[in-house]
């Protein structure tokens, strides 16, 4: 049972975390990003569409569609995030409203396109792209260790991808000049401007990163929890990721901790329902566990939290 809690918890927490990383990039640069939910959905849509096409031509046995799906989900998310970039940076629109609009638009757009493409291109009326669940890897040796061996058992390949991306993201954010300037943009963009940095460019790039990483998270959910792309992808995980990095105080490692708590709360709840032999209806109740946890954490943790100082402020050179 512990094994299952760890396996399911990790496979939920890591996509959540990679999405939170995207959010951290965007918000540390000073752009409020409520669009994560829409970005992950749109990324999942593009990834799933590419995979679905490839699967039809290459057969279900090939792993190429899977990897192409991950890549195209990131591209799709990044492209869709350009909408947020354009609205917030070029047209200086309100960032909260832009984020909400992008979320609503994503739901409508992707479900509509899914139906239309299924009907017109594949000739089969359907509101989803079936993907199946991703294959899993068990690492020999390591997985035999008691308890923590579970971390190496039945792992989705995308989990490794996320870990590698997380390390790269950490390195860029905290160790490079790009990261230094990005974080400075979120605190005092005027300082960056005076130092010769291009605030608009840095922020645009940061939002694109959040789009790409959310897209990746979306396709991961599609390949694990739902085994397909459909409107069900919009389960609110984007908002959960936002809660994750807020509890993590806009820093990577604490956000990882928050996402892991969410992941294990969810998988632990499932196991509990099963162990107690409760009817399946109760598992829906368990689904709300991460959100209830969010409420509690909000009460206890948010007191010491410090959002980036310039978060959500449109950058205007002439303001003093």
């Amino acid at each position, binding site marked *: 049972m512990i094994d299952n809690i760890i396996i399911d918890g990790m496979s939920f927490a890591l996509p959540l975390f990679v999405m939170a990383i995207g959010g951290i990039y965007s918000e540390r640069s000073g752009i409020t990003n409520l669009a994560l939910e829409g970005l992950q959905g749109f990324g999942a849509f593009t990834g799933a569409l590419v995979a679905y096409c490839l699967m039809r031509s290459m057969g279900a046995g090939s792993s190429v569609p899977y990897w192409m799906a991950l890549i195209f989900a990131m591209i799709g998310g990044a492209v869709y995030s350009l909408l947020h970039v354009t609205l917030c940076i070029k047209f200086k629109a309100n960032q909260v409203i832009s984020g909400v609009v992008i979320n609503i638009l994503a739901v409508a757009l992707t479900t509509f396109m899914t139906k239309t493409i299924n009907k017109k291109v594949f000739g089969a009326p359907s509101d989803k792209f079936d993907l199946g669940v991703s294959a899993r890897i068990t690492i020999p040796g390591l997985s035999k260790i008691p308890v923590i061996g579970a971390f190496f058992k039945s792992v989705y390949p995308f989990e490794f991808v996320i870990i590698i991306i997380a390390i790269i993201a950490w390195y860029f954010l905290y*160790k*490079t*000049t790009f990261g*230094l300037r990005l974080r400075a943009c979120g*605190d005092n963009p005027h*300082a960056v401007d005076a*130092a*010769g940095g291009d605030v608009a460019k840095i922020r645009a790039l940061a939002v694109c990163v959040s789009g790409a990483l959310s897209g990746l998270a979306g396709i991961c959910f599609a390949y694990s929890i739902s085994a397909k792309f459909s409107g069900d992808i919009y389960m609110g995980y984007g908002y959960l990721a936002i809660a994750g990095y807020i509890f993590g105080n806009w820093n990577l490692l604490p956000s990882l901790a928050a996402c892991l708590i969410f992941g294990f709360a969810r998988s632990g709840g499932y196991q509990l329902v099963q162990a107690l032999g409760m009817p399946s209806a109760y598992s829906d109740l368990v689904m709300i566990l991460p959100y209830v946890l969010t409420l509690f954490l909000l009460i206890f943790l948010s007191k010491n939290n410090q959002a980036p100082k310039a978060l959500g402020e449109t950058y205007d050179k002439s303001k*003093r």
Partner: protein
Amino acid sequence: MTEDYIIEMRNVTKRFPGIVANDDVTIKVRKGEIYALLGENGAGKSTLMSMLFGMYEPDEGEIWVRGKKEEIKSPSYATRLNIGMVHQHFKLVSNYTIAENIILGVEPKKKAFGLFPYVDIKTANEKIRSLSEKYGLEVDPEKVISDVNVSTRQRVEILKMLYREAEILIFDEPTAVLTPQEIDSLLQIIKNLRDGGKTIILITHKLEEIKQVADRCAILRRGKLIDVRDVEGMDTREMANLMVGRQVQMKVEKKPAVFGKEILNIKDLRVKNDDDFEVVKGVSFNIHAGEIFAIAGVSGNGQTDIADAIAGLLPVSSGKIIVDGTDVTDMSVRKRTEAGISYIPEDRHSVGLVLDFDLKDNLALRRYYKEPFAKKGVLDPKSFEDYGTKLIDKYDVRCARGNTTIVRSMSGGNQQKAIIGREIEQDAPLTIFVQPTRGLDIGAIENIHRQIVEERDKGKAVLLISLELDEIMALADTIGVIYNGQLGKIAPAAEFTTSEVGEYMMGVKHHD
């Protein structure tokens, strides 16, 4: 002979909507001198230098640097020309270390495993330490900005320029935010920089500073260049006259005071700050109608906390505050206002004004909820406009778009005029002025002093808190000197000499 000058701005004109900020201004700066730009608030000094630093482009005229015509389109281009500027509002990242702030944009890099570039903070720290020793700019590069005080932040801004190898350093009102001791050390630093071969342009409206450090001085008035003088042998009074364009009265004329009934009574007031540290330690005093009571003291001895406690911005831990017979100790700010307190706060930006609101809304802040501004909770725009127009005219608030000017875009002096107008219109028995003339030019200071005396003569009680000893000596009827949260001595102003007040302020002399 153009080679003589490192900077030449020729016939520069810059217009903003509704105002000509610089009108055909020509200045020529020699290498290795301290060149001062003197002028009242809004005379166009900052605008002129912003053009040199590439923040604005001139509408007309040319800028020559080192004998070459340049179009300075951005601050980073100015930096490449070795021009640096310390702005009035610091541009620092608050959660970064001093070193990170300094290197931002020109980060030294190293490669881990010869492959992964990273920001080399160690080398930066060392370089900053050696720079700070060279010019006497004491900082610890590893400290975080939000933990250091204003004068350190300013030194960081100076180091930022030096780190970028700036040769021409522009200081925009550098002393406005500093205490007297800090000012002395800054002026010394500026001299060190000049002696180290740098060229300095100093924007200021403080005549004393120019007298102390500058070699030459250009005087601007309402966007026009009035004159350029050698500072040596120049009389401060003459400079002041050139600056404001009329004879300046250095003294405040006032009639003998006529005290009325007691308006404010403070009994054993104790106040704690945010860190739970007691900053006001048992202060008692009272102010009568028709009296200016001034609290003198070195900054940070609890004087602003007394004002904040009376105004209701800080909770009182013990003691009593009685205004015009009403105990206001535990009242809300609005109740206090209605009980008869007007308050001109020290921090105009965060407490005094809503910067992104327009002028008429700011002027009505104290009374928007009352008739005729609001009728049963519905606002009446006409009343706001009429009231705004009336106050703008009465208090001579100069602004580009009248009632609808966004307050953020106004100069500091006019922002202050707006606050003072709003508060005086309250017609409250007690008016509190905290640092009312901070950062303002002579013309504005004179005007505010006159208003303070007028208030007194109308029979109001005035509490004046100021760090400027001259201001206190000129205005006060009664002086209380604060040191370390306690009022050392309270006595009629006539019984004090300036140096005596100074001694109490420094804690050298104690009350028996």
